[in-house]
């Protein structure tokens, strides 16, 4: 490995650490500021009164025995 290569390698590793570190810090901030609170609600946000949890919403067109 030449000096140039070592320098480049160090820069790349350094930038990975830097950006990876920034990502970790951002995650940490997100946790602390409550971005990840109440996951349950997040997962349920796609359901509503019209299509509630527990109701399937798709079937083959002629399989009416599955329908109400």
């Amino acid at each position, binding site marked *: 490995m030449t000096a140039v*290569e070592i320098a*480049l*390698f160090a820069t*790349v590793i350094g930038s990975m650490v830097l950006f*990876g570190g920034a*990502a970790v810090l951002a*995650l940490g901030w997100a946790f602390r500021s409550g971005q*990840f609170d109440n*996951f*349950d*609600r*997040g*997962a*349920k*946000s*796609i*359901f*509503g*009164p*019209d*299509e*509630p*949890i*527990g*109701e*399937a*919403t*798709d*079937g*083959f*067109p*002629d*399989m009416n*025995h*599955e*329908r*109400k």
Partner: protein
Amino acid sequence: MATTAAMTTTVDDSARDRAQAAAERAAIDASCRGPVLFFAASAIVWLLVGSLLALLASVKLHTPYLLTASPELTFGRVRMAHLQAMGYGWLSLATVAALLWQMCRLSRAELVYPKLLILAGVLWNIGQFLAVVGIILGDATSVEWLEAPAYAPPFFIAAVGIISAWTVAVFRRRREPHVYVTQWYILGAIFWFPWLYLVAQFMIFWSTAVGVVQPIVNWWFGHNVIGLWFTPVAVGTAYYLIPKIIGRPIHSYYLSIIGFWSLALFYSWAGMHHLIGGPIPGWLSSASTVGSMMMLIPVLAVAINHHMTMRGHFHRLRYSPALRFTVFGAIAYTLVSVQGSFEALKDFSEVTHFTHYTVAHAHLGVYGFVTMIMFGLFYYMVPRLTGREWASSTLIRVHFWCAAVGIAIYFAGLSIGGWWQGRMLNNPNVPFAHIVNYTLPYLFSRSIAGTLMTAGHLAFTVLFVMNVAGWGQQRAGGPTFFVEPPSASLSGPQRIGPRDL
């Protein structure tokens, strides 16, 4: 349990809530109808064009005299036109249809500026037409994934710019306070793709990056267009459709977050393994090998999450076409990604690189995974946009089995043939003629697979045209829903015959 009086009120309230929510969802779907169906329809046109080009290229590879005197239909041009038609026509336009509709639904916001979107769709299709026709007429660049002649990209760039800006505009109008995981994937994709495309266009065609910097940029783009454009939207779609169809929230929202951020961080590093052993600095492919192996984290996170969500609901694959296609795609995502991680290792890559094995891997990704999920989405989305059910469940079955068996034969044939092709290429005592002859039956099996897949696409096109033309049974009022009969689909006298599959 509440008291009887309270229960009556709740029932009244919930009936009103239900009607209200249904009306809101119906209004959102109605607002999406024009632009989303336009993108979906043009995606299907390009799917057919791409299929025919693929079939022709495949047959030409084992029957070289077929149409060999035609410059327009020589193997190289047809192969490039196939990639452009599928990558930027079918996959990208389907991806746009998917992200537009899901962004509206998940933001609980109606689609705005529909004419702008139609304009974007028209621009995209013009660019796409110029790309495919230009390649056929001999203007191709021979830069993989960027074969389009110089007059096509400006149309793509304008269209992508409109679509990205529009997505952000809808997102900012959201009424739903929570940003669902699918929306993260969509937001990531609409930001990454224009960046990727501009950098690649700029560095390869508009500036003076020559020499091996070009293939480096080329494969950073080529790999990321799959990983950061098709994959996020397809995975996001699975994160929406699977819970939505079976009526059960995602198993672990934590895992979905880990999956998203690790995908964002690692996938973008993975592209250089396409150049492993090539004339590029060694540290580049090493960095990519690390990135590829780290991809196991998001892939396993998604796999575990989807599997745990589906657990106890697998019997529904029997009656929901959308679910069956989507789950097929989700399983293929796990398979293709794990395979891809190991393919990036030097010992593995030096056999499979330069062979049909890589082609099989690529198709498991773009077809088994992305295309199948897009089919699943179309089966779910289109009836809700047109207000019509699919006209024929037989055609849906034909589509599914042609696609599923087709990709299975494709993958098995080229993986086996490609592996031994690679082993023989590495042995200088094996004459090249022997390798070519050895691969012929496998190339032939690919043509059979391609015929099946094309047949499936025709069935799908017929279904789509019938639906849009209003031939299906009307959906009852706004968005129809049906209550799952409590455990009825498992218990009770039920015959499961071939017709049910």
